[in-house]
């Protein structure tokens, strides 16, 4: 089912680049921009033009003014919704950004998603969790790479130290996005890029749009750095639990490798990200300290809403995905 945002965008993308896209009458759904599947999917696809070729869409759409105007309209709604989630008190501690990040992450009481998955999730729920994450993990690290030319000196070196590891240290088969695809295949899921996009609720797409938005606007380089720091700082322990969940369900190393790799990798990355990357950026550009914390907090807040959605659906015995991702489909492949 299409809403006005995707309807407007998708019909334009099938025409010649530059075709007008009317935006004046586009509004946000009753549940707000973060939960608006239609708006978030349109924004996701608008950003996607920067990442990959979309079948049937002329690549020149990427920099078409009408596309950028459309994207900006969606971004305005999205940015406002994110700003409303971030309280001013979260942005303090700007002279010691590494320490402030530690306190932010340490004080965050997100919903206990990884604990639930580790101990109790059914096979179907674990598969759903993987499907949600595929919106990002199949292009893991790519959004943050856009920050590389926007940083300099120590912060740039630190980001590259992390990214080199994310991309497998020169070994494509160790690239984290590849490991995730292996996990999907091992679970009988479709690992092709974007296969489940239409089944993902707005808040799932919002977690990815958040990083694409931060990454594609140079003025938001502080926020993408803060996002990466908080992402790495909240990764090791949940990933150990997700690996345990798969082991509990009888899966072997071919499926758990992605999660086990992240326990060790992110125990390294989180220190580099908080101190060498975020800390160095705040020293080089002190006016960005607040933005770094904004990016970190926005990640925690959106991940929290996303986790809440999964747990709420599962508590009611419902699927957390949109529409029928036929459970049969899981085992067919």
């Amino acid at each position, binding site marked *: 089912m299409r809403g006005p945002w995707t309807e407007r965008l998708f019909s334009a993308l099938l025409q010649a680049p530059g075709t007008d896209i009317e935006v004046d009458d586009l509004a946000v759904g009753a549940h707000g921009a973060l939960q608006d599947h239609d708006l978030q999917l349109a924004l996701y696809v608008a950003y996607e033009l920067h990442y990959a070729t979309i079948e049937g869409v002329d690549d020149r759409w990427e920099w078409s003014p009408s596309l950028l105007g459309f994207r900006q309209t969606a971004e305005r709604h999205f940015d406002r919704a994110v700003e409303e989630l971030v309280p001013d*008190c979260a942005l303090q501690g700007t002279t*010691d950004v590494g320490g402030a990040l*530690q306190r932010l992450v*340490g*004080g965050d009481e997100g919903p206990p998603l990884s604990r639930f998955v580790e101990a109790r999730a059914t096979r179907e729920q674990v598969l759903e969790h993987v499907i949600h994450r595929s919106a990002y993990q199949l292009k893991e690290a790519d959004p943050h790479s856009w920050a590389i030319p926007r940083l300099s000196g120590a912060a740039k070196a630190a980001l590259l130290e992390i990214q*080199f590891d994310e991309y497998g240290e020169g070994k494509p088969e160790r690239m984290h996005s590849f490991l995730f695809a292996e996990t999907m295949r091992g679970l009988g899921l479709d690992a092709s890029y974007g296969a489940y996009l239409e089944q993902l609720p707005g808040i799932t797409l919002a977690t990815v749009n958040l990083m694409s938005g931060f990454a594609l606007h140079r003025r938001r380089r502080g926020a993408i750095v803060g996002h990466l720091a908080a992402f790495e700082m909240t990764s090791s322990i949940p990933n150990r639990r997700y690996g345990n969940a798969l082991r509990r369900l009888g899966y072997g190393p071919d499926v758990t490798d992605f999660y086990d790799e992240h*326990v060790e990798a992110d*125990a*390294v990355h989180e220190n*580099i990200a908080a101190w060498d990357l975020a800390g160095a950026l705040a020293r080089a550009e002190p006016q960005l300290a607040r933005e770094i914390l904004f990016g970190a907090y926005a990640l925690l807040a959106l991940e929290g809403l996303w986790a809440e959605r999964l747990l709420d659906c599962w508590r009611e015995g419902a699927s957390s995905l949109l529409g029928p991702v036929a459970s049969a489909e899981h085992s067919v492949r």
Partner: protein
Amino acid sequence: MSSSDTPPGVTITPYRDGPYLVRGSFEVLDQDGNQIPLSRRTIALCRCGKSRMRPFCDGTHKLAGFQAPGRAEELPGPPDANPGAPECRRAR
């Protein structure tokens, strides 16, 4: 920074409230002299003692509330504590 003019082959850095990061060209051996396989260039060694994959860090120090400075401690004297900050809860 290195104290000599020759760049060191290996650096070991304690991170605040976190592990030791080891960078450079090195091996990790068990006490019988066998090589412990490494899966990356930069590794994090457990400093809090609570990791479940020692000698490597698995992030458990955060659950344990481990605190330590990101530099050498001077004895005698208290370890440098994190400054307290007002608690900040997420707006719902």
